[in-house]
Every structure is written in C-alpha cells, then in structure tokens.
C-alpha cells in the first residue's frame, strides 16, 4: 500500500502540469487575446490567476480584470472576474474550432500592468484516472497513450492530405485566373490600338487632312 501511495504521489505531482500555461502582461484599459483550436466534446480544464505579489482589486461591478472565453459561435463559455488566488474553470466545446481567450482590464486605474496567468489542458489527464481509483498499470497506460498519439498522427496525415489537395486546387484556380486575365489584357491592348488607328483615320479624313 505504501508503494501505491508513493506512486500516486509521484503521478499527482506531475498532474499539476497543464498542456499550456501562458502569462500575459495586461496594461490599464487594454485587452490581450489569443485563440486556440479545441475538439468537440472533450472537456477543457483550466486555471486563471493574477500572479501573486500583485494587487488584486475586489470590485463589485464591473470587475477590473476579466477572463472571457468565447466559443466558435460567439457564445460565452467562461466569464471570470478577478479574485485573489487560482480560479479553476472548465468548459466543453460544442463544436470543433477556435475558442477565444480574452483578458481585459476594464476600468482605468493608475499603476503598472499586471501579469495574469491562463493555463489549460484538453482531455482527461492520467492523474484524473488515478483519482477515479483505476488500477495503476504503468506499462499499459504508457502504451495506451502512445497508441492514442499514433491514432492522432494518422488522422493528422489524412487531414494534411486533404488540405494539400485543396491547396493544389486553389493554386490551379489562381493559375487559370492569371492566364485568362493576361489574355484579356493583351486583347484589350490590341483592341485599343486598333481602335486608335481607325478613329484617328476617320477623324483626320473628316477634317480633310488626309
């Protein structure tokens, strides 16, 4: 039992790691945003924190610093106001696509820009499985993770193939467009030249100069 306890401790220590942990410096009255692609249906776990050592302003309404997470369709998934300490958040994207993370300091205040940390991971971490009481089989778990990633690579290759052919088609369209427009340009030039000569001939004959 002590063995397993030790094992759980080790894994839990690593479980604190999020896939992405970013710190942004948000000045007064500014907004810092970034977007991330998420898959539909899988839970995204995250953490929002105003880094320790900085003032935190507990205001009623509106909050000074907010984290707003908006989905693909414009729907607000998470809306957090500033509070001391780490604030966990969680959402499940309803569709594949870009999700916007926006950090905003709404009201004007004097002082240095504050550093805010946003962390997130998509997909259940190994530690959460352990927390559920799943039997720990290290090699099996490791192989499962590798298998999972290999599948992801396979899907990725298919996706890249499709994108590659779409790009080829697009380039063909541009190619054709350039060819046609060049042809039109030449045609226009020739027509203009010919028109010029005929018009001038007609004009000068009219003026009895020819």
């Amino acid at each position: 039992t002590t063995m397993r306890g030790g094992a759980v401790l080790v894994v839990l220590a690593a479980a604190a790691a999020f896939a992405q942990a970013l710190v942004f410096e948000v000045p007064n009255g500014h907004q810092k945003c970034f977007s991330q692609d998420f898959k539909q249906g899988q839970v995204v776990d995250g953490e929002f924190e105003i880094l320790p050592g900085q003032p935190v302003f507990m205001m009623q309404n509106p909050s000074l610093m907010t984290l707003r997470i908006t989905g693909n369709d414009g729907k607000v998934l998470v809306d957090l106001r500033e509070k001391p300490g780490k604030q966990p958040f969680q959402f499940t994207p309803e569709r594949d696509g870009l999700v916007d993370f926006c950090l905003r300091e709404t009201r004007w205040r004097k002082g240095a820009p504050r550093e805010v940390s946003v962390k997130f991971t998509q997909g259940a971490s190994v530690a959460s499985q352990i927390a559920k009481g799943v039997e720990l089989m290290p090699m099996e778990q490791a192989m499962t993770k590798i298998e999972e990633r290999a599948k992801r690579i396979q899907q990725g290759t298919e996706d890249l193939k499709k994108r590659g052919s779409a790009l080829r088609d697009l380039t063909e369209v541009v190619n054709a467009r350039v060819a046609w427009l060049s042809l039109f340009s030449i045609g226009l030039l020739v027509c203009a030249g010919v028109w010029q000569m005929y018009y001038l001939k007609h004009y000068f004959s009219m003026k009895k100069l020819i």
Partner: protein
Amino acid sequence: RRHTQTVMMKQTTTALVALLVVVAAVAVADAFLLNVDANAVECFKEEVGENLPVKLVFQVIQGGSFDIDFEITNPKGEQVFNGHRESEGKVDFYTTIAGYYKFCFSNKMSTVTGKAIEVLLQVEEKGDNLGYATSEDLSPLDNAIRQLAEGVSDVVTVQRQMHMRDEAHQNITLNTNRVVLYWFFFEALLIVALVGWQVIQLRKIFETKRVV
C-alpha cells in the same frame, strides 16, 4: 530475504511509475493563434525550470508580407534568441536558469496591416522533475517505450508545423487570387485612360495647327 524482495519490488514499481510520468509528461501542447496589430508588440511569458527543453514553433498565417520580428528573453532580461522578418520559425533551446521566459512578436515593421501568428510553445513546467527516472533506472524495454513516446510526440509536433505551414500557404494563395484581380482592373483602366489621352492629345495638336 523477504525484505530484499519487497525493496526490489518497490524500486521496480517506482521506476515503472516514473516511466509513466515521463510518457504522460511528454505532453503535447497545441498551437494557439495570436493577433498582432500594426505597429504593435505582443508578448507572453511561460514559467520554465532550470535545464529544461523549450520548443517554440511559429508561423505567420495572415497579413501583409507574412513576416514578423520575434525575440525570446530569459528571466534575467537577456536575449536568448531573436529573428527579423521571419515568416516561420523553429527554436529549440535548453534553459539555463529557472523563471519566466518572455516571448515577443513585433509587428512594428507594418504601418497598416495586422498579422496573425500561430504559435506552438512546448515546455516542461517547473516541478515536473519530481520522480523522473533516468535511463539507468529503467530497463531496456521501459527505455524503448520512453523513446517511442518521445518520437511519437515529435511526429505530432512536426505534423502541427505542416498544418500551420499549409494554412499560411492557403492564405497567401487566396491573397494572390484577389491581388491579381485588382491588378487587372487597374491595368484595364490604365490602358483605356492612356489610349483616350493619346487620342485627345493628337486631336489637340492638329486643332492648334489648323488655327495657326
């Protein structure tokens, strides 16, 4: 004898768990999209421990000439890497000191167009060093699995890079498509205007001559 057996079992289990930790922690981050307005600089930081690998891959996928200036600064404020007018970049380095590393993307070269950059940042977070087994602790099979895990993660990263590159190329091609059309209209207008002007000038010359 029983005691030795228990100790050995404990060591094996710890090693195996450590292996799992290594595989799990070879976590693959996904790329995020960052918008940099014209004449602006966008920065973000990430906390990294000492002597850990940091991998930054970025691709300018939208805007102007599809290039950007970037700079990586260590916690002391010293520059680790920098690039000028790069359309894509791949930076791999090991940290020398622990702390917040700053990654900045500058669009100061652009006066009008904003840029969109896809950034893939992969670091091993501070605190991940707990319980890691080194190659000596793991048996050959475990070592092989560890290498496999690392290799597979590398492939995922490379694939993401290819995806980002393709996005940039698509946007460039769409841009070209649009620009070609605009140029044609401009050219057509110019031709018509020029021809018209030539005719008018010729008429003027002969009219003046007549008067004289």
